């Protein structure tokens, strides 16, 4: 199992690829079937954001360790216009209305850890992690 899986996001077919890769890695880590769907859905939201607001970018999937715990780290990055007000973008009002729907607050709710770095003109990096259950059977 490679350390890092980079999926370039240039078209919606790539969104599906990224989702699929996330599911594969998640399954290897022992994520529950529910968690696998959460991961795939989060990747879908983040990858679509890239397409919609930056045109292209990249999703990187990595297995991470913290002491005894293993997790799947998802990094969605692009060189797009950036988000002027990150705090506001993470507010709930933007999510399910179907309008501006950045999908960020939603993606955050699907993952265990979540952080976002973005500045206008400097692109956006979203990093989230889903931790696997403590002990493997």
């Amino acid at each position, binding site marked *: 199992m490679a350390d890092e899986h980079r999926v370039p996001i240039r078209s919606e077919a790539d969104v599906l690829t990224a989702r699929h890769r996330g599911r594969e890695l998640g399954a290897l880590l022992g994520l529950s079937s529910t968690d696998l769907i959460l991961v795939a859905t989060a990747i879908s939201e983040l990858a679509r954001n890239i397409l919609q607001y930056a045109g292209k970018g990249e999703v990187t999937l990595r297995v991470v360790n913290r*002491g005894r715990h293993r997790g799947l780290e998802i990094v969605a990055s692009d060189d797009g216009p950036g988000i002027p007000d990150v705090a506001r973008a993470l507010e709930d009002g933007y999510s399910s209305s179907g309008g501006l729907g950045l999908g960020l607050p939603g993606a955050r709710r699907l993952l265990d850890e979540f952080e976002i770095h973005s500045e206008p003109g400097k692109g956006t990096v979203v990093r989230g992690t889903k931790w696997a259950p403590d002990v*493997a*059977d």
Partner: protein
Amino acid sequence: MERARPLAEPPAPSLAVDEQAALRDFFEVYDAHHEEVSAALLEWARGHPELRAWVEGTPPEEHAERQRRSRELMRRAALDGEWEPYLEHLRTQGMTYSQAGLSFRTWFEVVAGFRRVIHPHLVEAYGGDLPRLGAVLGAVNRLLEVALATVGEAYLEAKEEQIRAQQEAIRELSTPVLPVREGLIILPLVGAIDSTRAQQITERLLRGIEAHRARLVVLDITGVPAVDSAVANHLLQTVRAARLMGATVVVTGMSAANAQTLVRIGVDLSGLNTVGDLRGGLEEADRLLGYRTVRVEPEARAD
């Protein structure tokens, strides 16, 4: 059962050159007296209430073989730098002690007992050369630290796994999904609900809807002590998720006090279909499903 591995492995201990000499000194003595050492350890164990049964239930040849293997692995680690097999052996020991139900103190004494037993032999061999004796005792201490840490960590992991499994079993028991009649299931909740449990409840409820083809779920929260806004939000999420699957959820057992608290906090309860008590909830459920309960008069007995 495959044992759980700590994935961030501590690096194999590296010992300095003069430690190597001290370890060779140690093994010379150990090899020469290993039978006495084994006998002394077994004797001590036989006198220990938690260990006696195991000592006496195992044939002497097996004890001897176990000791031989342990000694060999220790030697290959300390003198040849082959730490992995020895560390694996220690980890298995820790797991075994935990699963056998040995107390923390007992496993500690088992591992530390080795030093107590070998000590007099080392003093006898090197007592005339204090620096050398000092070095040997130091090396033995280092070995023991490695053993205690490795066995201990494995012991704790196995214990934590046991506790986790028990908690899982308790959760399963406390979140039963009860099929009542066709299309209707009941989920009586008992106990406090944190976000982890809330997720499990939602998952069980949704799987229950699928498995029993339920169109209606009665979710009874009479047994849930504190319904605060967090719990209420979990309930709302559960209700919404069930609706996505085509099922209606009726929440019963929401006390007047709880309801008032939630209204005061400002939780939007409009998404919750609530009925006072379980019986009322079942009647409502029947109504929604289109059932009508009719009382059948007992036939008059002809005397």
